[in-house]
């Protein structure tokens, strides 16, 4: 498999996600969060937060559109049917709350071939409306060859 690496270093258009209360709640309940600051606005405020607190892994939600755009870019050329999520890393800054606007930019950090498979690493950087970096991520996708 000759891997096309022309997209290496490519930076995609930033995408802004407005964080909503119900989205935080829906996500928190789906992953079984028990801490009321993710589910009950009054409890979040009583704990000193401005509104519902997004669980850290809610990063996958506010990054979703920016990452999808990169994964599906024809210049990257991923064979979707053969895609496996190989690894994931997140580093978090300040907490994200309902009402925040999070802007995420994705770049192609690495493309290489190993043991006949394609390894694609995407880097995401997410900032809130005050310009603080709330999360950086590395998304490693493995594309198996078609046999």
């Amino acid at each position, binding site marked *: 498999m000759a891997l096309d690496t022309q997209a290496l270093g490519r930076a995609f258009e930033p995408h802004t996600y407005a964080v909503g209360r119900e*989205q935080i709640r*829906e*996500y928190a*309940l*789906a*992953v*079984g*969060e*028990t*801490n009321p*600051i*993710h589910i009950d606005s009054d409890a979040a405020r009583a704990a000193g937060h401005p509104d519902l*607190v997004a*669980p*850290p*892994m809610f990063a*996958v*939600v506010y990054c*979703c*559109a920016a990452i*999808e755009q990169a994964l599906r870019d024809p210049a990257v050329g991923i064979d979707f*049917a053969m895609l*496996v*999520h*190989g*690894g*994931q*890393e*997140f*580093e*978090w800054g300040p*907490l994200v709350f309902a009402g925040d606007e999070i802007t995420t930019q994705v770049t192609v950090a690495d493309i290489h071939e190993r043991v006949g498979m394609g390894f694609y690493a995407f880097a995401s950087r997410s900032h809130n409306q005050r310009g603080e970096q709330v999360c950086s991520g*590395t998304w*490693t996708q493995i594309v198996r060859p078609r046999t």
Partner: protein
Amino acid sequence: MSALEPGTELAPLCVTPEREVTARYAAASGDFNPIHLDDEFARSVGLPGRILHGLYTMALLARAQTEAAGGPEHLRRIAVQFRGIAVPEQEIVISSVVRERDGNRVVIAATATQQGRAVIRAAIVELDGIDA
């Protein structure tokens, strides 16, 4: 909260996801890949049936850490490698051991297993703001 000192094993988090959890997670996360929703499609690509989202299992692993640390504000970093598939209606066990401690900063090694098989192996978690 027990002291997070090197060698301390956190109480394991054990979750048996309901069959509907993949649909709920898809709706919450925006990942509607049919391998997570449609048993027949999943089998057509060589899977045993619908499988859990890898990022759902990672979220369970993250929840185990934030619950042990006393809140989400303590979680600085998680790095995982996905090593196997997990399916609904079978127990997932998150196991975590403290590896390092430097002041109020703690490094934890964690795994997610299902029926003894690794789903996430050698996850590295960094916490901060942990009181002695």
